[in-house]
């Protein structure tokens, strides 16, 4: 099992959700995060003049998948979240030890 953590643009959430659903993964966890990569910050206006905000709002989508699905899901997310501009985000893949479905107590791959 692998956990896929995708940092994406806020406006791409619906596209990514649909792509995961089409790929057979209905469950996911989404959180609001802030950060920046190469995109740099955001210039905002004060009462006079302006100031720079270094951290931009992004969404983090987490989904745990079977080992054999990893590349398929990575492709699906990448295709759905890409605009081609800076700030499209990043995806990380992490190993997962175990999983438990709280309702039934099922463990391992059966739980995801």
């Amino acid at each position, binding site marked *: 099992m692998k956990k896929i953590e995708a940092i994406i643009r806020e406006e791409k959430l619906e596209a990514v959700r649909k792509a995961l659903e089409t790929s057979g993964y209905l469950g996911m966890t989404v959180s609001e995060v802030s950060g920046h990569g190469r995109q740099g910050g955001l210039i*905002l*206006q*004060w*009462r*006079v*003049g*302006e*100031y*720079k*905000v*270094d951290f931009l709002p992004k969404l983090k989508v987490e989904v745990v998948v079977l080992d054999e699905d990893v590349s398929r899901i990575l492709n699906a997310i990448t295709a759905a979240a890409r605009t081609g501009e800076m700030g499209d985000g990043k995806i990380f893949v992490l190993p997962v030890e175990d999983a438990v479905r709280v309702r039934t107590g099922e463990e391992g791959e059966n739980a995801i």
Partner: protein
Amino acid sequence: MPVNAADTAWLLISAALVMLMTPGVALFYGGMVRRKNILSTIMMSFAVLALVGLLWVLYGYSLSFGPDKWGIIGGLDWVGLRTVGQEPSSVYATTVPHLAFMIFQAMFAIITVALITGAVVERIKFSSLFLFSALWLTVVYCPIAHWVWGSGGWLAKLGALDFAGGAVVHISAGVSALALAILVGPRRGFREKEPMEPSNIPLVVLGAGLLWFGWFGFNAGSALTSGGLAASAFVTTNTSAAAAATTWMILSWIYRRPTLLGVATGAVAGLAAVTPAAGFVSPMMGIPIGIGAAVVCYYCMLLRTRRGIDESLDVWAVHGMGGTWGVLATGIFASVAVNSAGANGLLMGNAMQLLKQLAGIGTVWVFAFGATWVLGKLVDVTMGLRVSTVEETVGLDISQHGERAYGGMLR
């Protein structure tokens, strides 16, 4: 004179309107600070509402308006509201109960002290600010109010015009704010240009809205009667606010985009500037006064930023300089055709009035700055004005008040 029911009704309503301005200032300021300091910022104004409400009836009113002593201060005859009752005063607002005039004036003292707090948000120690507020009311506000509005006050006798408090409220608060901010020093990270984002702009606009609404009591109420002069001041006030808000919006638009923070700030600048003039100039003069206010305050704010002074919420630029422009503008645009108790200004051929206005401005600037400096130093050496580094980093909501604005993990 007997009590006039219409005048009394209008003045009591006006007092309530002005009262609402202080929670308005609290929200106006609160929304502009970082979220860790929003409660402490609101608390500064709200605590002043309570503190000054008490001190005013105990002795503040007597010091400001009590029987004159040498033109500089009111006597102690009215301490604890002694002889201030349901009958009209023989000198102030003679058609309403003396108590109505007293409580109307209380609201002015309250908001003046509350205005200053915007200069020192996010790093001043609450206990020190509380003590400073009491001292400032006593040593700075009461004398200035007496000079300008007190029967026998020396600036009143000189003929300096200040309809609703351009000098007494706005210049005194703005200049004192500048002095106190310099004494307290900048917030950590200010010099390093760390972003200090306003946490809630809708709250700022709600506050500005309450201010605009309450200002009708402030300015039209200062007619002290219900009638033509009140209506005239009402329209002049609204016109200036509208002109200044539009101008500020355009200035921010020229810079980049029309900002909501800008339009709200412009409205407040226009209201501050029209305060001394509202009952002395004709309603259409609200337009040049408002446009001038936005331009003056906008560029003063830029200047303040470029000088690296952390007068955090620009009380000086908006109220100090808006008030200064307004008191000057009164000397330019005033006309006895509007208010026979006023005077003619420069445009009516009376250049003398402009000099009298300048005397008022200079006096209040020098006295407010100097006295605030001394009081601030006094509090600094005895209690310390600033919170510790850790307290400042954590935020004043938790370190000063043990509360947080947005608590809880559960929705």
